[in-house]
């Protein structure tokens, strides 16, 4: 599988998917006009990855803000990684938030309620 590197825009996040390293990162702002069009190809990519994942997979979120239709797609994506985890592989979700941003911390906690794989929530300094 080839890497995916998508540069951020004012309304879409930066995407860095490096399957050979088991590293998947979504960062920045996510308020696409059509979340489905933006995320569906990425979800299909992750589904293909899930068939032959490496031993340890890390999914990293570093978001500033997002719209609610993006949230549904984030959840759909994490659920695909959850399947890899239930198949016995090592999978971690790292949900980073700006240390001032309690709202983003709570968004990570929402996912924790709905999912069974390890989600690490951590405040960091963001630009």
């Amino acid at each position: 599988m080839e890497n995916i590197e998508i540069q951020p825009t004012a309304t879409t996040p930066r995407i860095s998917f490096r399957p050979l390293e088991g590293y998947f990162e979504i960062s920045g702002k996510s308020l696409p006009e059509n979340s489905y069009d933006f995320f569906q190809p990425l979800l299909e990519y992750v589904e293909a990855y899930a068939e032959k994942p490496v031993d340890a997979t890390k999914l990293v979120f570093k978001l500033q803000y997002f719209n609610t239709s993006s949230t549904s797609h984030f959840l759909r994506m994490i659920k695909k990684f959850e399947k890899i985890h239930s198949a016995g592989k090592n999978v971690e979700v790292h949900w980073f938030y700006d240390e001032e941003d309690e709202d983003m911390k709570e968004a990570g906690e929402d996912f924790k309620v709905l999912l069974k794989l390890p989600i690490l929530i951590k405040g960091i300094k963001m630009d």
Partner: protein
Amino acid sequence: MIISSALDQYKSMGNHQLIFGYRGSLSNDLVSALIQMADSKLKELETPFRKKKAIINILIEGLQNSLFHSIEGQKTFGNGHNCLFLLGKREGEYFIRIGNFIESSKKEVLSAKIDKLNSMDAEQIQQMYLDVLDLGALSDKGGAGLGFLRIIRDSGNKIAYSFEPADDNQQMFYSMEILVSD
């Protein structure tokens, strides 16, 4: 040619405690630009981070809702999917007002939906948010209806709304006002 007093307009905007406003056609890039502008204005006013974030989230959902669900207003109101957007602060509360044209036939469904959400307490709203999010993740199209839940959850207040008749019976001007306590 004499123009009307700019100073009067300047004072009038101040009297309404406006931070800033926009009237006109929307695009998603413009939504993003308005959010950036709101963000820097709120920083200037030293709005606590939590309040600023709540306002930004409400703007994202409210303006995109307006962008996706409004209809083209009649020519007398200008071309395009016009909206009204105001952000201001009065008596220690921020107010956000967003208005746009909708088909009159949508009024019943929309007001019933908001009334139902307004009758719920914070815990019920949070539970419903999680339920709709989880359910939405099962479908391709995502969680429809999460926007209003997020607006209520983040504002901590009810949504006030109004429907005003536009030029004929086919369309109305729908607006909502959301308060965020300082």
